[in-house]
């Protein structure tokens, strides 16, 4: 599967533009702030109906406008899939596939797998557990619509239960029998989701090792430790025993919304003890493993987005990544670079054909190729 073209209207800093892509390597070249990363994000948007960087859809619009649209044609096994995503201020976002609007956005997730590598974005390693849950939820949701359904249900019941806890607190009246339908669903779903996460990590974690050795040239053992309240045999009891605390804090304290994934290297926490270089290598290895997981499950190579890797990685790591590109390990590739001459040299030297899109201030100015 590949993306044949994309049209943007009032998306981020693009007022109106159209891009015809190569099936292989596409480079977005231009100064910082020109809009290269916004283009990657537009592709991410089409694939997953959300930005990779921005959680509020409203911010996707060109400043001063109240509407945006991203349109793209994918080619999958010879068939054309036209995708049209638009949003008007204050209205719900619209997603249309081949002229047919989606009833549920979640039906779209997983049809167009995409992997983004942004080496500067080590928040996945450094920040709190929420970032990591989002990353793995995002991946598992693309791999299994069943997982996504359960997760949507869980998050909904959690919101309901927390709203109720807050109402109990505010009104001073509490009817515990009203809490029970939600507690029961959360306990059951925690068990189901925990099992899916656990099984997934068991299969997924070992794959990171070979990528890490290849990218970093080091042989430290990499692993992921998955922790969850729902992993305890006493989970249901723990959940119910937490009621007192839940009532005081006005939120649910036990459940899979508290899970964490701890990245380790040589048996130690990557967050606490990993060097910056190790963290970047780990992050890339994690994303390459994500690429593998999609390829295996979907029987096709996901679209790969590489944001600013030439600036943010050292020559050895860039060299290793480019070896994978030259070996045609990837399918369609989109890459950003602030220095055109550097990309041109790298791809020319490796004799990798690439289409180059020169971008200035939210406009496509020139298309060249190697």
């Amino acid at each position, binding site marked *: 599967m590949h993306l044949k073209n994309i049209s943007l209207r009032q998306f981020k800093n693009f007022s109106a533009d159209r891009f015809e892509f190569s099936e292989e390597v596409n480079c977005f070249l231009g100064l910082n702030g020109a809009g290269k990363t916004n283009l990657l994000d537009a592709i991410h948007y089409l694939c997953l109906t959300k930005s990779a960087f921005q959680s509020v859809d409203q911010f996707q619009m060109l400043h001063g406008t109240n509407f945006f649209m991203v349109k793209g044609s994918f080619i999958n096994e010879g068939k054309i899939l036209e995708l049209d995503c638009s949003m008007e201020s204050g209205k719900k976002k619209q997603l249309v596939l081949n002229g047919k609007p989606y009833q549920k956005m979640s039906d779209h997730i997983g049809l167009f797998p995409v992997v983004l590598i942004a080496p500067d974005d080590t928040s996945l390693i450094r920040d709190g557990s929420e970032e990591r849950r989002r990353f793995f939820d995002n991946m598992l949701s693309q791999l299994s619509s069943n997982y996504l*359904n359960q997760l949507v249900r869980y998050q909904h019941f959690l919101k309901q239960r927390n709203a109720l806890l807050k109402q109990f607190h505010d009104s001073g009246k509490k009817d515990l*029998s009203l809490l029970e339908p939600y507690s029961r669903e959360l306990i059951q779903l925690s068990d189901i989701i925990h099992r899916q996460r656990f099984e997934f990590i068991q299969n997924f974690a070992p794959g990171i090792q070979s990528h890490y050795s290849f990218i970093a040239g080091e042989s430290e053992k990499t692993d992921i430790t998955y922790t969850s309240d729902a992993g305890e045999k006493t989970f249901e009891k723990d959940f119910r025993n937490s009621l007192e605390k839940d009532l005081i804090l006005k939120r649910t304290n036990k459940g899979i919304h508290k899970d964490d994934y701890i990245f380790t290297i040589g048996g130690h926490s990557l967050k606490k003890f990993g060097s910056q270089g190790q963290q970047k290598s780990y992050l890339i290895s994690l994303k390459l493993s994500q690429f593998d997981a999609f390829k295996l499950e979907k029987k096709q190579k996901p679209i790969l987005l590489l944001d600013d890797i030439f600036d943010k990685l050292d020559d050895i790591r860039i060299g290793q990544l480019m070896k994978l590109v030259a070996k045609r390990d990837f399918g369609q590739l989109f890459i950003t670079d602030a220095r055109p001459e550097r990309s041109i040299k790298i791809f020319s030297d490796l004799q990798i054909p690439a289409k180059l899109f020169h971008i200035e201030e939210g406009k496509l100015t020139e298309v060249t190729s190697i």
Partner: protein
Amino acid sequence: MNFPSRLIEEAVTEISRLPGIGKKTALRLSLHLLKQHESVASSLAQSIIDLRSKTSYCKICHNISDTEVCSTCSNPKRDRSIICVVEDIPDVLAIENTSQYQGLYHVLGGVISPIQGRGPEDIHISSLMERVNTPLDGETVKEIILALPATMEGDTTSFFIGRKLEAIGIKVSTIARGIPVGGELEFTDEVTLGRSILTRTNYST
């Protein structure tokens, strides 16, 4: 939109408050009314006023009724030992259209949703409990059918009511959910299929 007259603007504003009607349609309807005989507009207006001021609800089942007790609740041929609990009025019509049900109804008028600030006291749950406890014309209620929507709120509301009823020893059932008639298994979503296997029914020939 700029209107040539303040009267038209007011009409458009009011009509476009109705669900599914935008300003353009509202304008078309307003202009249409202007072209009709005056009596068309006044009888429309009168029926809207009557609808709002004269419509009343059955004091037993909360369905719409012109009388204090609706024609279903007062019909001696209906089975009073069984009550079907639905979310809203259209659900009663839908079940009536199947001609498969002879019992009574109870319209909740909504489902519980703490996020939207809707609790059990905002819908007709306490009157359902009363009905169960006080037999109508000497006939006791033997079964409650929960026919709430198959949504997350429908499910949690069913569970909440079901628990309350079971606690006083009433038989509670719920409408079956599963593969639509004429549906293919492979195209049925996983949740529905999984549920229909868990709640499978005995096969009798």
